[in-house]
């Protein structure tokens, strides 16, 4: 679209740019809902690959879920996995290309329900890959059903009166679970809902890629995110609700560093 307004033209002119999208994000418009955290996480991961100069050595694995089309936005070689199997697919790739950087990008239903076995065993084998786990406590793509990480009392289209632990089971803290396995080298939980949180996540995500050179095990980063559409809230309300409800149960912070459990995750900031 051509912009004719001279004032706007001046603002967006090259010399006035304060931020530029990494060329590792394609120009395709994101299919995510406005306010969703996926776009930020995509951008941060692509910025790191760009800054590390490893595009020619990086292969990503896209899951089934809202980010099934991640390969349309990420300008890197990618393979799309069947529901839950991304860690197995990544294992196959990494075992054949041990020198390359391999990561999976998965949601909570994909990673912590249907793909639990693949998650646990890839972590336990200590595959030298990175797993980025987006936890918004809901199945976004299929229309807001209960996820393994849905909080007790939280409403979804299959828990319209709130999740009842006695009937529907408890939310699964899979990140704490994989931290206990000897094959994980770095485990952390982050958010991307404030500029500070994004910077912290970026630092951790960079470590997840750098760790792959060490061949010491798997790096696992959970990103607690919102789903304003699935939660039936505005983006601002969703972020507030996430801070008040999700983060006390899923507190951000490093859980395992350099193969050692560092501390109990921090309380919400």
């Amino acid at each position, binding site marked *: 679209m051509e912009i004719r307004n001279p004032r706007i033209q001046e603002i967006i002119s090259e010399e006035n740019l304060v931020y530029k999208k990494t060329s590792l994000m394609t120009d395709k418009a994101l299919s995510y809902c406005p306010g969703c955290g996926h776009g930020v996480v995509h951008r941060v991961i692509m910025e790191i690959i760009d800054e590390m100069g490893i595009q020619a050595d990086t292969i990503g694995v896209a899951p089934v879920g809202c980010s099934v089309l991640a390969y349309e936005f990420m300008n890197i070689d990618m393979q799309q996995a069947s529901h839950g199997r991304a860690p197995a697919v990544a*294992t196959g790739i990494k075992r054949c290309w041990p020198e390359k950087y391999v990561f999976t990008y998965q949601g909570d239903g994909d990673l912590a329900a249907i793909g639990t076995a693949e998650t646990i065993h890839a972590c336990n084998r200590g595959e030298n890959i990175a797993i980025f786990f987006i936890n918004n406590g809901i199945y976004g793509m299929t229309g807001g059903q209960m996820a393994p990480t849905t909080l007790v009392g939280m409403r979804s289209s299959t828990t319209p009166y709130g999740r009842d632990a006695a009937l529907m089971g408890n939310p699964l803290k899979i990140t704490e679970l994989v931290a206990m396995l000897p094959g994980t080298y770095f485990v952390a939980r982050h958010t991307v809902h404030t500029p500070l949180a994004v910077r912290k996540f970026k630092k951790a995500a960079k470590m997840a890629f750098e760790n792959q050179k060490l061949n010491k095990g798997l790096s696992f980063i959970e990103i607690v995110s919102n789903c304003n559409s699935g939660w039936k809230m505005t983006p601002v309300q969703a972020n507030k609700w996430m801070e008040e409800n999700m983060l006390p149960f899923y507190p951000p912070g490093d859980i395992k560093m350099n193969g050692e459990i560092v501390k109990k995750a921090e309380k919400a900031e």
Partner: protein
Amino acid sequence: MGKMKLMKGNEAFAEAAIRAGCDAYFGYPITPQSEVMEYLAAQQPQLRTGMVLLQAESEVAAINMVYGAAGTGKRVMTSSSSPGISLKQEGISYLAGSQLPCLILNVMRGGPGLGTIQPSQSDYFQATKGGGHGDYRMIVLAPASVQEMSDFVKLGFELAFKYRNPVIMLSDGIIGQMMEKVELFEQVPRLTEFDQQWVTTGKTPDRERNVITSLDLDPARHERHNLKLQAKYQKMRENEVRFENIDCDDAEYLFVAYGSCARICQKSVKLARAKGIKVGLIRPVTLFPFPSEEIGRRAAKLKGILTVELSSGQMIEDVRLAVDGKVRVALHNRMGGMVPSPEEVVDALLKSFSIR
């Protein structure tokens, strides 16, 4: 001449995998094919050729490791037996949809369900008609000897890469477990150089990114993709039909049998001919594509065809389609791990066509 050895079918398959320059094997134990991974483990293929060997947490994980590894353009394989192959079907569908080459071995056992660990041929439909969801085909090779358990590994990889499609070796508990002499082919180097056009290596500045996916939400484009797949399967039908004819030239009756049943029928042909019955055997070597033309061409001159199968009668449907009503096709079958004797097959031929 390669080295002659006495081996189990499963072992010959595993040795052939290393010799065929396979880059990675992912599997999960199941009877009656566990010798494949056991033999590989004992051989330490990571030291012999650098081949990756990994025991997965499930058949589901194993086939998805194959899917990921196949995306790197390497020669990759898995093996299992019937219940495990059922678990792999979703992954196979993804491999076919994404047009990835790989080799899969099914050492069939009896079903349905947990069934039995005894031999069977009841996964014929599953292997030849698709198996998983969606419109796809695999090239299906049916070994009838330990020699072919070895030879078809090399052939299977060639065909898988020729068509960028999964190839399945449909064996059974008899062929997998029995010992025969086998002439092993010489070591083939692992893939060091290959077609880099479509594989995931990491995007370089000189090309667009490579994406391996079976997903396309645009109906028109996805229909074109399906048409392209169908055209590929048609090419397989035109170019890859393989079969063996035994004593067919003067035959009035035909046995049609594959795998272990073909071995039994070879003896039955001799027994029947000793009684003066002119019978031959057509052994399909590829079950997809099926030797329909060969069987159809002979049909009009025949008095009857007997298919012999370790199933309720699955291949017989393809034989009937091939003869198109020109001759009566009867079935002799055993199930549940039972195996017919050559004499029993001859009796079945006599009874089916009222031969005196």
